[in-house]
């Protein structure tokens, strides 16, 4: 064994060099630039960080973005979890059809998927027309350029990222466990709550991490559905970087944002693992 894999890791060296040069070094530049006090980059100071974190308005944008991700992830979980369960239990032919239905949107351009929702959510859109026809509303509701609209679209656009890891987890759960639970007299809900749900937690955590990270950074969906008045971190950072040409500030925003997202991702992972330890212990 050692003789064979001996020195094999050296194959990765050119790739490592590429990543060091074009990924790690730029991130280093990002950090260094964030330490400059002014766009002309003369003096070093932590001013950009206090400017972002010390301002109610700026801090509000950060919090709004993190919360937006939580809302969209929860909607995604609500829709994705049952479908993943159905797919895992479906007959092979139905299963491959449903997997196809999940993967096609995943591979379709995000711009295209978001664009579809403009047609659906607009004042003259399908949703408004349907709700008017059914009589649930008297006049068109504003859905585009509102936060609930963005949450809905984000949840839809990222739904495949939730379903795929859940599907993998469900397929690994021994079907005999549910049968055993039923044989012991537990109903469907009880079996679900006591057997299936705890065992699926790693998949839930994996799906939530992917969806959350995708939702908070979804520049296209946030700008097209949210419009210009609803500003979340990606658009704000982009405006500072290109519109205002304030590189140090945009760099500091990027770094704070990266760590904030990383923090939430670690929290989600810890929640998934912590519960699993409880189940097995």
């Amino acid at each position, binding site marked *: 064994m050692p003789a*064979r*894999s001996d020195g*094999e*890791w050296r*194959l990765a060296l*050119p*790739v*490592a060099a*590429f*990543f060091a040069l*074009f*990924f790690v070094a*730029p*991130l280093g*530049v*990002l950090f260094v*630039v964030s330490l400059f006090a002014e766009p002309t980059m003369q003096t070093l100071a932590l001013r950009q960080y206090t400017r972002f974190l010390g301002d109610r308005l700026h801090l509000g944008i950060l919090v709004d973005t993190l919360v937006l991700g939580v809302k969209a992830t929860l909607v995604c979980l609500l*829709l*994705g979890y*049952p*479908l993943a369960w*159905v797919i895992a239990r479906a007959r092979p032919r139905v299963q*491959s059809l449903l997997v196809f*239905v*999940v*993967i*096609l*949107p*995943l*591979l*379709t*351009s*995000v*711009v*295209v998927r978001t*664009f*579809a*929702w*403009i*047609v*659906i959510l*607009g004042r003259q859109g399908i949703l408004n027309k349907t709700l008017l026809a059914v009589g649930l509303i008297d006049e068109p509701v504003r859905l585009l350029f509102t936060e609930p609209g963005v949450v809905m679209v984000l949840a839809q656009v990222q*739904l*495949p990222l939730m379903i795929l890891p859940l599907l993998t987890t469900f397929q690994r759960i021994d079907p005999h466990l549910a049968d055993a639970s039923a044989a012991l007299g537990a*109903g469907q*809900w009880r079996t*679900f709550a006591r057997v299936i749900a705890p065992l699926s937690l790693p998949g839930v955590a994996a799906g939530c991490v992917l969806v959350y990270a995708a939702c*908070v*950074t979804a*520049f*296209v969906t946030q*700008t097209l559905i949210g419009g210009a008045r609803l500003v979340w971190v*990606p658009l704000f950072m982009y405006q500072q*970087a290109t519109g205002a040409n304030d590189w140090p500030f*945009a*760099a500091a925003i*990027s770094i704070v*944002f*990266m760590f904030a997202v*990383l923090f939430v991702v670690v929290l989600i992972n810890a929640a998934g693992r912590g519960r699993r330890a409880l189940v097995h212990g």
Partner: protein
Amino acid sequence: MAERRRLDLDELSFRVVVGALSTAAVVVLVAPTVIVLLTSLTASASLRFPPDGLSFRWYRALAGAGQLQRAAGNSLYVAVVATAASAVLGTLGALGIARSRSRWARALDALFMSPLLLPALAFGFAALMAFSLAGLRLSWLTLAIGHIVVCAPIVVRTAVAALAQLDPALLESSASLGAGRLYTFRRVTLPLISRGIAAGAFLAFMASFDNVPVSLFLSDARTEVLPIHLWQIIETNLDVRAAAASGVLIVFTLLVMLLAERLAGLSRQLR
């Protein structure tokens, strides 16, 4: 008797809730694609669903949309270059880390996966600043490099998964029969992991073709890519040509996906 009824209610309510939510999920997954396709066939000049009359006029209008075509050509060019480079780099990277348990290999694994975890927008901005401070002007090369950074990890992931399923005994028998390392790689390893590499390359291609966060910073007027151009059309004047272009993209995605499924078993690689 009462017990029996309670059980039925339990079963029924479970089925209704799961059924309703998963049906909603399927509708929500399928509807946008169908709606874009139908909207793009409208005969009128406004985006409306259901469309007012059917026609291919907006698809014909694409033939005259020079800027859109140029952007599509640019995207295709960058995606092909980025995919080819990602396939080579990703395979090398995977070969280096997949079977080694050393600390270095673990560290490299984390390094190769991190572009997938970090917000790509931050990386795009960082790359813009790095190139500009290094005195490099934005070009095809800098755009392709940015795309390779976010696409190569996808190939690393699928190639590592393929290598993990490779039986080491095969490599040992090849070696004991006197084959050199390169010969073993060419005749044993590569054929066995080629589906994994191909699946990764397909995903990398789609990721590059659809990339916005990196292109937003690294492409300029000359290298404008399709998703950015479409984003601008939709944001500024919401032209029906955007629907027709979306329709073309959907059909294109569908074809690439069917090809990938045939050649590389794509749907199995994604799970």
